[in-house]
């Protein structure tokens, strides 16, 4: 088993006023295989977003190291595309232009024709052809997030990082986007790390679910293998013993072993 993305003893300490410090996450060791889909789940404040930001390079680990494809991560880069929770599309650019901007920057060698083809390919991948000339303010939250995914994938990242990508959406739209993501994953393999607080989402989408203990000094509590065949169907899974086992394992972790008092 080759290591693709490797987290070794990762720790993040935030300085507090008056010389104090806050240890957000500590001693995180995780080995992620290529084309694996990982969910990181935990109560709010467990440092899961901090962890993702460190992989993205937007935040630097104060101890330990993160290695992607034999290269240590020292800063942000397009090989680790991020889908942010609030989509972060640039509102002054159309759907097409938002994706084009990213492709243009990361693949400057493309001819104008190749650039156009590539942008269209990813717009089609998320079924957004009719909305391609609309501004983000004119499309729904679910569509915005699809553009966010298309933009992230269009730059051919080695890892796709998703920070509670569907957290701000209603449950039906969320289900729809999960289907989108699974279908894309079926066609084009990607290594994906999803931050979530949704148990069903974690089981449905992932090969492994990483469960985080509560902060401060949060770390990996348990790792759950989800042994479900793909493509997965959310309806029939409801009665699948493996699905039920995974759900129960996460439930028990979050609400028995590491229940959060005030939430």
């Amino acid at each position, binding site marked *: 088993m080759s290591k693709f993305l490797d987290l070794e003893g990762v720790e993040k300490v935030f300085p507090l006023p008056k010389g104090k410090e806050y240890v957000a996450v500590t001693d995180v060791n995780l080995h992620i295989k290529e084309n694996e889909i990982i969910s990181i789940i935990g109560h709010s404040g467990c440092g899961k977003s901090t962890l993702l930001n460190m992989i*993205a390079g937007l935040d630097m680990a104060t101890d330990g190291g993160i290695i992607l494809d034999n290269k240590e991560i020292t800063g*942000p*880069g397009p090989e680790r595309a991020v889908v*942010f929770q609030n989509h*972060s599309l640039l509102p002054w650019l159309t759907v097409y232009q938002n994706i084009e901007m990213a492709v243009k920057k990361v693949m400057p060698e493309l001819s104008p024709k190749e650039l156009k083809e590539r942008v269209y390919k990813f717009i089609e991948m998320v079924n957004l052809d009719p909305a391609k000339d609309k*501004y983000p303010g004119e499309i729904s939250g679910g569509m915005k997030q699809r553009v966010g995914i298309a933009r992230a994938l269009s730059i051919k990242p080695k890892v796709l990082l998703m920070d509670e990508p569907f957290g701000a959406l209603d449950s039906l739209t969320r289900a729809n986007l999960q289907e989108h993501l699974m279908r894309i994953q079926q066609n084009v393999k990607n290594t994906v790390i999803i931050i979530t607080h949704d148990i069903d989402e974690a089981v449905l989408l992932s090969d492994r679910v990483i469960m985080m203990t509560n902060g401060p000094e949060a770390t990996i509590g348990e790792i759950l293998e989800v042994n479900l065949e793909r493509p997965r169907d959310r309806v029939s899974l409801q009665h699948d013993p493996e699905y039920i086992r995974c759900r129960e394992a996460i439930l028990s972790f979050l609400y028995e072993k590491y229940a959060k008092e005030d939430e």
Partner: protein
Amino acid sequence: MLSLEKLRQIVLPFLVLMVLIPAWSGLAVIVEDFPTPSDTYVAAFGGINSEGDEVIGSLSDPFYIENEDDKGLFWQVLNSLERVFAGFALAIAIGIPVGLLIGMSKNFMTALNPYIQILKPVSPLAWLPLLLMVFQDINATAISTIFITSIWPIIINTALGVKSVNEDYLNVAKVLCFTPLEKVTQIILPVAVPYIFTGMRLSLGIAWLVIVAAEMLTGGIGIGFWIWDEYNNLNYPNIVIGIIIVGVVGYILDMIMGRIADYFDYTKRR
């Protein structure tokens, strides 16, 4: 066919006018020498005034040129506008880069902010003697006075625009490894442009306020000087005309600036 909304927009201000004109007439009765509405009308468009004198209206031929010192109102206003735009252009050229700088750099902000806060409330009339002493020239003095009093809203609003750039957009720039220049042109400027235009709009308003005062003190030509000159000639109705012209031109300038600002504002582009 006039819509009800259009009608409303015409009728309501007209009703206010019906109150204003009698109030003005009353004021002219109480205050000695205060120009009446009818004398002001005559002074503007020509005719016989209340004293029985034949008057040539100052608006009946705004384009006349008698000599260098005696020109129609159009030329007076044009001259003022030229100075305003010169000072305003200078304020934009320097204000926007300075605003970008202090918006992006905390150090520049800390270093410059006290001076901005102190110089911002200084009246143009306080600058004028100093600048007149420096330049010894009417035009240069008026333009530099406008520059130094109208630059502040541009700096402050530009900096505010830069600061209002969403952290998420900057993260996008980071992930895509934008160069600093790309960050400015592709992320910061699109967000900041509406703020910059708000600053420019405020700045132009100030510039137009300042020109009248500056020209009164520097003399020569210009709408401000014209008003002062009419005061010295005891042509009081013309002062009222001057005030109305300054108001109307200021309103038009603000409207044009507002239109331009909307055009560049992505939140209003649909």
